[in-house]
């Protein structure tokens, strides 16, 4: 397998991780027009909780999965109910500032409650190596890719074909009128935050499983945000594709230009794309009657 293809495939694997977090960004933005800058920290918190549970349960997979989902649901619901909902009606800027404060708080909390060191994730499965077309992967990397595609297709179908999904898209368009249809907008916001927390929580644990558990997980949010912008903040599927593009571009830049360029390559692509498509690659254009 050529160097290029190896970089490309590993870029896709990293991009799948960015894509999951970007989808979480996009879902919240799509429904409530809020950018949750604590997304990375939420995934870090779930990863640490799952790590602690894994230590005491000897890495039992089923307990792991249940823990990840339960912790994510609780974290998403609490943040929406306690922090975001009281701010409804205030300016979006205020809510975004609040999510930044939340990010700082979660980072500090994790440092105090656990520690600031990196740890190997003690899970019992996914550590085996497999070789496909001459490229060697961890099984857990393939699991990540499978979860990414399943999330993309599942969310797309949910938003397109279910009445709750259509209601979420309607809320994004006009929340006041959505209320006039008998829809509880608060409940929809809550559902969006919970789904988003579960997706980013899964991403956090998958990252921890492949690499390590540590405070650096929080920075994945910062890397995934340009992916959401690139795909279109209001396009869930677009955000996922944006993640793959950023992952591939980062890997190619790191491999061919130098590892120092890896960090900025994604942002350069975002800048170029936004100059021509300000709403992102797959973002919805606003329809205006003239």
């Amino acid at each position, binding site marked *: 397998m050529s160097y290029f293809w190896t970089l490309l495939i590993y870029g896709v694997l990293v991009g799948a991780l960015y894509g999951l977090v970007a989808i979480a960004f996009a879902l919240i933005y799509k429904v409530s027009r809020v950018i949750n800058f604590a997304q990375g920290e939420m995934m870090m918190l779930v990863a640490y909780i799952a790590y602690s549970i894994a230590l005491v349960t000897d890495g039992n997979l089923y307990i792991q999965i249940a823990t990840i989902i339960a912790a994510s649901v609780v974290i998403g619901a609490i943040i929406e109910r306690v922090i975001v909902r009281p701010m409804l009606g205030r300016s979006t800027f205020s809510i975004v500032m609040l999510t930044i404060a939340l990010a700082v708080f979660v980072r500090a909390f994790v440092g105090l409650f656990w520690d600031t060191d990196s740890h190997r994730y003690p899970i019992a499965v996914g550590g085996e190596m497999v070789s496909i077309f001459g490229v060697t992967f961890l099984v857990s990397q393939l699991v990540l890719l499978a979860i990414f595609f399943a999330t993309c297709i599942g969310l797309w179908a949910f938003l397109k074909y279910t009445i709750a999904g259509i209601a979420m898209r309607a809320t994004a368009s006009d929340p006041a009128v959505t*209320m006039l*249809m008998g829809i509880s907008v608060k409940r929809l916001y809550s559902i969006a935050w919970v789904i988003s927390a579960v997706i980013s929580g899964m991403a956090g644990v998958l990252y921890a499983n492949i690499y390590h558990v540590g405070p650096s997980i929080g920075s994945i949010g910062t890397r995934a945000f340009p992916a959401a912008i690139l795909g279109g903040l209001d396009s869930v599927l677009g955000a996922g594709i944006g993640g793959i593009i950023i992952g591939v571009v980062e890997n190619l830049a790191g491999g061919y230009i130098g590892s120092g360029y890896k960090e900025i390559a994604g942002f350069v692509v975002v800048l170029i794309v936004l100059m021509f498509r300000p709403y992102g690659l797959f973002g919805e254009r606003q329809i205006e*009657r003239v």
Partner: protein
Amino acid sequence: MLKSGPSSGELGGSAPVAAARAGLEVANAQIFYDSHVEAVRDISFAVPPGQIVCLLGSNGAGKSTTLKAISGILFPEKGMLVSGSITYDGRRIDRVEADEVVRGGVVLVPEGRRLFINLTVEENLLVGGISRSAADRRAQLERVYDQFPELPEHRHRISGYLSGGQQQMVAIGRALMSNPTLLMLDEPSLGLAPKIVDSIFEAIVQLRSNDMSVLLVEQNAHLALSVADFGYVMERGRIVFDGSANDLMESPEIQEFYLGMNASKQRKSLRHVKHYKRRKRWLS
């Protein structure tokens, strides 16, 4: 007839006859924006079951604010009902969430249609029926398509690209999806061609024959009174006239100030109409 406060109109007229259900009753409602801007002052009116009642008045009279208060969506605009009450079929609805008002059978078609413009026609309609079961929603969707035969051919089109008249049909159809017993329409004729307006108003009249009440807010007084059973006229947040549609049509005051006609029922010139504010007797 409910008294419309101290400034109750001079026409009186026959009161709407209430059936077994109580319908909508707004009693001494006072609405403020931002806690200090009074938009509606001590208004009272009723919409009995199965009748079309219109709220007339110029811009800023408080008509849309009244509809928003009934629908429970004053809060996002920092509005508040500070006194009085709003009841529907005997149950207070002024302290419940908007979604509960809809489930209670009261639905508003907002001014300017306000469709979910990135959703298709059918998706807009389905969202309107979200409070119903999936089977009921499908059945009601077919009924709406029967009511507006033009819509099925556009069901998969993005609603933002429809004409104004088609959008208004979707907006009314979307409201009908929840099977309301009281439909409130805010300026349904706004920005539409006269021919389209006629077909929209035909549909509104048809709704009454389905035993639905309609509260119609409209600046086009002639059009509104031509389909309504009863009317209320608002000015600067107060109800200044009320009466049956026929009485209001015949009233020299209404003819002069809202229908633009003189005593001999001739259209007045723009020059005469322009001075109407100065000559309004009930506000002096």
